[in-house]
Each structure stands twice: as structure tokens, then as C-alpha cells.
């Protein structure tokens, strides 16, 4: 079974041959310095402790930057195949660019789990074993419905990374969610000059709110942006009037939820995405274990003032 691949991996052949049955799992993910992805990575590595105790390994492959996300990630997938992966975990961020690479994984007979982005549709289309992750679209819907139900019916999604499939789904889901409960939503895409600059994002949010005074709900696509949005709203003099809900969270966002300057955070539980995806593949490669449940949802979960305290402990531990 694995023999041809072992022979192909000439350099490491001797090493690998000794542990022919153990799973070398390759995980394609975001930049390790991305606040969200460092948690996913932590989950994958924690699952890797089990894999290592059974003689296998977990290798994290992340792009240097997000300038050419789809193509770079596709390249990383092919790298995993070349390095003799026994199993591959990857997000389907940009299907157009990444599908052929995922197809190559399946064609090579390597078990594949799609996680984080793409949904069960991508797993079915590509012939992957399973999908582990939150449903991006449902995450946006949850935020839209939460804010709409709180009485904030005119919403905007701040898109700081226009073009990525999962981010577009957040925003579309948000519009759907707020529309479901009788409101309306729009999208504000930001230019590349503001990426990674809290001030630029805060000022953009503020300008947009001043120019569109009827907007009373803001949805952000990541935890860094949520902090910026809260600052932008304060500078527009609209604290309390405009409510913020954002994807992902960190300590400062939980504090903001606690003190009321942010309404809610949508949690996709990144730790479980890394942890479960690696565990499933490790169990399958080593012992033929399968998980009959298809589409393992790790989110969306809504964190608001009522659940914030329970979440703080996980943040301290670096797993949430």
C-alpha cells in the first residue's frame, strides 16, 4: 500500500520504513502568526502528541503571506504530496486555485480531510473523507440574526480581505441573517493599503458610519478587525448605538463583550478544527477507524455576555 510512496521518498526511506504504519499527517493552514491560525495549529499539534506517541508526525505548512493565497496554498498541498504525506488536512479557501491540488491528493490515494473552509460540499466534490469546521455561511447568518434580534436592523459587513471565498461567505451569510429577521445588510470592502493597520480599519469604519448614519450593526471578519471597529464606532460618537459582532475572538474581545462595547463574537472553535481533523486521519491511517458522521461542525457558536466568562479560561490556555 504505502510501499511505492516509501520507495519514492528516497531520502527518508529508511527512517519511514521503520514506522510504515504510522501516520505522517500534513496540515495546510494559515500563517502561524495569524491570531486565529495559531490556535488551529495548537489543536493540530496537540492531536499530533497522540500521533507521535504512535510513531507518526504532524507537519504544519502555512504560506509566508496572504498576497496570493489560493495559488500559494495549492503549492503547499502539492508539497505535502511530494514529502510523502500519509494523510492531508487542508482548507478549501479558493476552490478555483486549490481544487486541482486537492484532486491530486485524492488521486494519489492519500486520505484527505477538508477543514476550516469549503464545507461538506467541497469534501463531497473532491472525494475527501470528511469536513471539519464551522460553516462560514452559517457563521455570518448567526451574527446577522443575533444583531437583528437585538433590534439593530441596518447592518454592514467590513470585508478587509476581499476575494477569499470564506470571507465572502461570512458577509453573504450576515446579509442573509439580518434579512431573515426583517433588516437589511451591505458589504464594505477595504483597499489593500489598510490590511494589518488597526488605524486604517478603524478610520474606514468610522467614515462609513458617519456617511451612512442609519447603520446600527457592524459585522467584522476577524478578531483584529473587531477591535478596530469598536474604536471606529467610539470615534464616530456612536458607542452603544451601533452594535458589533465579529468572527473569532481573543482576550480583548471577551473583555469588550464583558463591558458591553461588543455585542457578540462568532466562534468557529479553531482548536477543534485542527485537533479533530488530525485525530480522524491519524485513527484512520493507523487503525482504520472511521467517523460515520459527515460534516463535523465546530461552529458557529455565539459568545455573548451570558457565556463570556466560561470562555476566558480557554484563552488563558492558548486553546481558544
Amino acid at each position, binding site marked *: 500500500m504505502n510501499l511505492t510512496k516509501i520507495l519514492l521518498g528516497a531520502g527518508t526511506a529508511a527512517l519511514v520504513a521503520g514506522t510504515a504504519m504510522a501516520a505522517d499527517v500534513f496540515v495546510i493552514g494559515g*500563517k*502561524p*502568526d*495569524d*491570531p486565529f491560525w*495559531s*490556535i488551529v495549529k495548537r489543536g493540530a499539534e496537540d492531536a499530533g502528541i497522540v500521533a507521535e506517541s504512535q510513531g507518526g508526525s504532524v507537519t504544519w505548512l502555512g504560506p509566508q*503571506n496572504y498576497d496570493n493565497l489560493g495559488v500559494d496554498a495549492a503549492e503547499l498541498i502539492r508539497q505535502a504530496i511530494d514529502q510523502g504525506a500519509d494523510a492531508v488536512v487542508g482548507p478549501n479557501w479558493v476552490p478555483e486555485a486549490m481544487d486541482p491540488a486537492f484532486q491530486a491528493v485524492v488521486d494519489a490515494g492519500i486520505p484527505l480531510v477538508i477543514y476550516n473552509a469549503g464545507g461538506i460540499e467541497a469534501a463531497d466534490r473532491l472525494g475527501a473523507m470528511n469536513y471539519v469546521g464551522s460553516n462560514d455561511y452559517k457563521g455570518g447568518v448567526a451574527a446577522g440574526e443575533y444583531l437583528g434580534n437585538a433590534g439593530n436592523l441596518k447592518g454592514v459587513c467590513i470585508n478587509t480581505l*476581499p476575494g477569499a471565498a470564506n470571507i465572502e461567505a461570512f458577509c453573504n451569510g450576515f446579509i442573509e441573517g439580518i434579512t431573515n429577521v426583517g433588516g437589511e445588510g451591505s458589504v*464594505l*470592502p*477595504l*483597499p*489593500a*493599503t*489598510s*490590511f*494589518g*493597520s*488597526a*488605524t*486604517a480599519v*478603524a*478610520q*474606514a469604519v*468610522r*467614515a*462609513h458610519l*458617519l*456617511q451612512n448614519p442609519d447603520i446600527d450593526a457592524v459585522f467584522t471578519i476577524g*478578531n*483584529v478587525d473587531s*477591535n*478596530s471597529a469598536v*474604536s471606529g464606532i*467610539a*470615534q*464616530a*460618537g456612536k458607542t452603544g448605538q451601533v452594535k458589533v459582532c465579529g468572527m473569532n475572538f*481573543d*482576550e*480583548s474581545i471577551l*473583555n469588550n463583550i464583558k463591558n458591553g462595547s461588543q455585542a457578540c463574537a462568532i466562534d468557529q472553535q479553531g482548536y477543534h478544527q485542527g485537533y479533530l481533523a488530525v485525530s480522524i486521519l491519524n485513527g484512520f491511517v493507523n487503525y482504520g477507524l472511521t467517523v460515520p458522521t459527515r460534516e463535523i461542525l465546530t461552529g458557529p457558536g455565539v459568545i455573548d455576555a451570558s457565556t463570556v466568562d466560561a470562555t476566558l479560561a480557554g*484563552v488563558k*490556555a*492558548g486553546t481558544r
Partner: protein
Amino acid sequence: MSTTTKDKRSAARMLGRLVRRAETGSFLGMVVVYIFFAALGGRVFLGAPGFSSWLNTAAEVGIVALAVGLLIIAGELDLSVGSVIPASSLTVAIVSSHYGAPEIIGILAGLVVGLMVGFVNGFLVTRTSIPSLIVTIGTMFGVMGLTLGFTVLIAGSTGVFIVPDPVTKALLGQFVGGMFQVTMFWWAAFIVIVFYLLHVSPYGNWIYALGGDRESARNAGIPTRKLTIGLFMLSGFAAAFVGVGQVLTYQSAQVLTGQAFIFNSIMCVVIGGVLLTGGAGSVIGIVLGTLTFSIVNQGIFFSGLDPNIGSVIIGALLLIAVLSNDSFRKTALSFAAKKAP
């Protein structure tokens, strides 16, 4: 001749001299851009919220642009500013929040990080023949990696949070009147200092000479090595200062910030009429370039233009600015000043 004609002539001469100044092109560019967005943005853009919106943006990138501008005039580039910003933010947060040291210690440590990176840049550029573009790309990635590594190692995550005490917050991270970030007053201080450096003190001429012809500058007795290292340390310091301001403003330091400052600062400098090849440029020009860049960046959100094409407008502005600066400079140089009677 009568006194009135004499006055008229000297007034005309002054006007001529003014028009021939390189900054005039940048100034006109800024006015055009402002009128354009004022027409589209209306009252909100013209009022205090509009002003503070682009001034806040300008202040942060402006501090970095001043120092980077001096380097470009001296014929060098510094891309490491993009990773010095998060490095200093995280240093402040880790020293003062994670370890609980007094905030002044954290702030000084953050600034020292910037000075150190600047020193390494300057040292490598002066001791090797590697172009500063490459050296600072190298240190940019180096600092980025060290920041990530140490932050995860020490704090266990990629973001560190800090609740600054009221005095520090008021000095470095406050919004005056709820909307004017104090950073803009620091920017004003930087403008005065850098203006003195470049246009009043003898260092100014040294910097121009350095950018004009390094060999001749050294032969003329200018301590080129010390000067280059000093300029890199200034840009490291400026970037670190912005990082310190950011962490105290947003009360959180994230590894993934600052990259936008690399190209934004160079754009501000170039829009301001500084020659990318060195040897020409002015502080007023850099300030005007920064304001123009920020007005466009923020104006898009007030204007009702499709934000999807925001990046296109910013890119087009840069090219138009450089082209018009170039042709303005040529026109200005080809008309010689009339001899005084």
C-alpha cells in the same frame, strides 16, 4: 524706477521662486485631491469628523514617512519598518502587561527595539555592499520571525493585551475630543525635528550629498557611515514610536500588523516629490504627500465611490503624482529665474 514697479517685480520674483519649488506640485496635487473628495463627500468630509479621519491616518504613516523620506533622500530604502511596528508594540505589551513592569520601561524597551533594528540595518548597509533594499527585506523577515517566536514563547499566543494607565494613555493613545488621535501632535513634533535636521542643521546638506554621490560625499569629509547608521536608527525609532502609540491606543498588540506601512510610507514620500534615486526632496513635500495619500485613502469611504475599486484609485494616484511631480520639476528647471535688476 518707481517703488511700486520694484515691489511688483520682487513680488513676481517671489512667486516665480515659489512656483519653481518642488513642493508646489505636491501642494497642488493635494488641493486637487481634496476638492475632488470634498465635492463627492460633502459636509461630513469637510467637517471635523472628516478632518480627523484623514489626519489620524496621516499621523501614523506620516511619522514613518518622515524618517523613511530622509533615508530615501540619502539614497537608501528601509522596508523593515513594517515589522518593527508590531515588534515594538509587542515589546511594550509583553514587558509592561505580561511581566508587569512600569509602563515607561515597556515604552523605552519598545523604542530600543526600533533603534537596535535600525542600527543593524545601518551597520549591514555600510559594512557590506548589499543594497539597503535587500538588507532591510532580510531584517524585516528576521524581525517578523523573532517577534512571532518570542511572543508565542513568552505569552503563549500571538496577541498580547495591555490596559495602560491614564497618564500614558493620555500622552500616547488618547482621542482628543473623541476623534483626534494624539499621535497627530507627535507627528507635528516629528515634522519640526526632521525639518530642523534636513533644512537648518548642517546634517541636511550631508544627507543630500549622501544621496547625490556617496563617494564624493565621503571624499568631502562627511562621516557617511555614521550618518547612514544614524538615519536607519531614526527610521527604526520612528516605526517603533508608531508601534508604541498603536498598542496604547488599541490596548492590544498583534503579531500580524504593520505590513501596510512599508508601501504606504514609500508612497507618501514619493507622492511628496522625493526622488526615489536620492538627493532631492523636502520635509514639506513629504508632509504634503502624506496628507494627499491619507485624503485619498479616507476620501473613498466618504465619497460613495465603489470601495471595491479603492485600491485602483490609490495606485492611479501614485502614478499620476509621480508623473506630474516629474514634469513639474522639469518645467520648473527649464525656466531660469530672471536676473534681479
